[in-house]
């Protein structure tokens, strides 16, 4: 019972954590993802950058099966999660996602937010779930907030709780969707520090972000998303110093002018 069994057979070290193949997604007439191919290796941190509306959130939601695909395939740790008959609840257990707007459960304390899924999905005993949750909250400096309700926390604290809530399921892959975009500037750093700590710990992450400086620091690879395609990708030094595609150059130029790089 518990985390170990539900993670399935440990994937071989060479099996990528995530493979996205030819993913298409439209909302009505609007084609948001127009053929995405992307591979994330185990322990790799990949940042998605791109203009607002370029499809970053949609891609992350597709990976977590919150949006059905129109075409393509998503393979997580060797398992095709789009295959017919796949149990989406089981797949989502292994993939954590943290949203821009935190989306904490407002009617539950911090501790209950964190333990809900371990109790109800992994069927951990409440005491066990609480012990694990407290260890995580402790690690991210939130132990004294365990009894608070979300509306009593700052945005930065709420977002850290949301990250802890995702981590409590011990996901093999963590998706972060502009997790600092809704925060006041002085609260951004505490959340980025948490993500850096996770990267040091070897967490595999796919991160949509507007924080270019952060992306440059943390990413093993940066993908520039434009009009539903990955127009260019490479290591951060190359992407930020010498982007090849003209559109990437223009995007980074605009970001720089806005003082975000």
């Amino acid at each position: 019972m518990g985390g170990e069994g539900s993670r399935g057979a440990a994937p071989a070290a060479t099996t990528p954590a995530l493979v996205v193949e030819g993913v298409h997604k439209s909302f009505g007439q609007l084609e948001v993802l127009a053929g995405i191919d992307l591979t994330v290796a185990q322990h790799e941190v990949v940042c998605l950058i791109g203009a607002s509306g370029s499809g970053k959130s949609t891609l992350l939601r597709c990976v977590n099966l919150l949006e059905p695909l129109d075409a393509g395939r998503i393979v997580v740790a060797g398992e095709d999660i789009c295959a017919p008959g796949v149990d989406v609840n089981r797949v989502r257990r292994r993939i954590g996602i943290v949203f821009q707007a935190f989306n904490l459960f407002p009617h539950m304390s911090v501790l209950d937010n964190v333990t809900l899924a371990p109790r109800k999905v992994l069927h951990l005993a409440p005491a066990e779930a609480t012990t694990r949750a407290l260890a995580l909250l402790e690690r991210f400096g939130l132990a004294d907030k365990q009894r608070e309700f979300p509306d009593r926390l700052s945005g930065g604290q709420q977002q850290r709780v949301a990250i802890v809530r995702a981590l409590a399921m011990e996901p093999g892959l963590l998706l972060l969707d502009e997790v600092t975009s809704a925060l006041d500037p002085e609260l951004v750093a505490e959340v980025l520090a948490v993500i850096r700590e996770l990267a040091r710990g070897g967490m595999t992450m796919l991160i949509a972000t507007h924080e270019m400086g952060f992306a440059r620091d943390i990413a093993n690879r940066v993908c520039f998303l434009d009009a539903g395609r990955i127009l260019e990708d490479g290591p951060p030094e190359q992407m930020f110093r010498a982007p090849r595609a003209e559109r990437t150059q223009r995007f980074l130029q605009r970001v720089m002018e806005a003082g975000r790089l």
Partner: protein
Amino acid sequence: MSHLGGPLDTSGMLAVGPPGGPLRARGRPRTAVRSTLVAVVSTVVVFGILVWITVNAPGWAEVQVSFFNATVFTNAFPDIVAAFSLNIQLFAIAEVLILVLALALAVFRSLPGPVFFPLRFLATIYADIFRAVPGVLVIYILGFGIPGLGLPGIPTDPFPYAVIALTLIYSAYVSEVYRAGIESVHPSQEAAARSLGLSRLQALRYVILPQAVRRVIPPLLNDFIGLQKDTVLVSYIGVVEIFRQSQITQQAKFNYTPYMATALVFIAVTIPLARLTDILVSRDRRRAAASAR
């Protein structure tokens, strides 16, 4: 007499009030004193005029005798209060059944996807029909129709039919209230729950419904005020509850005072519930205003 026209508009109750509302009461003391004074004076004047018109009306003497007869009142009151216990039973049993049935209907209607179409469809038809048909007709049809079938073992006592009829009628309204609550919970809450691996039903049970129910408590209480009053409708199928009892006394005494006694009983039980609802509504508004900082 009947509230069956429909539940009070729930959208207004879920709305965020102006943040200035609760602050105004705490305004400067002198202004507060003056506005209280104005309120008292204008109330006294308005009611004074109404009373003056009433007691100077040409038929007042007869009305006084037939509606405000102290002797009849004193004699009838114990019977009327005793009969009210039946209304309380009707109300209490029906309320529990309504809360359960209406929740089930609301959940059925909120299930997405083609698999659940039959359930959605049935729940929708149900709500449509029972909101369309006047409540008295439902009570008549059940109360006289079902026993009239003469099926063996079916109760002849009208009480169970009264409970069932009130439950069927009010569940249609209350399910709409629940539904408004469910729909007021932002879809991102379900996304957050599902992304953690909770099933659709678990997300509903642990994340969506607790938030939805909390938001609809004031409109639910409002519907129950209506239900409390509508228990008198089942007098039509022979349940001797408070209204039927006052009718009996009225016919025996040729005097309408028993109706006034009945009205008093309802006022006494409804006003506390109405005040409670108001308190909950304004508490919700304050909370919404505080969290919208």
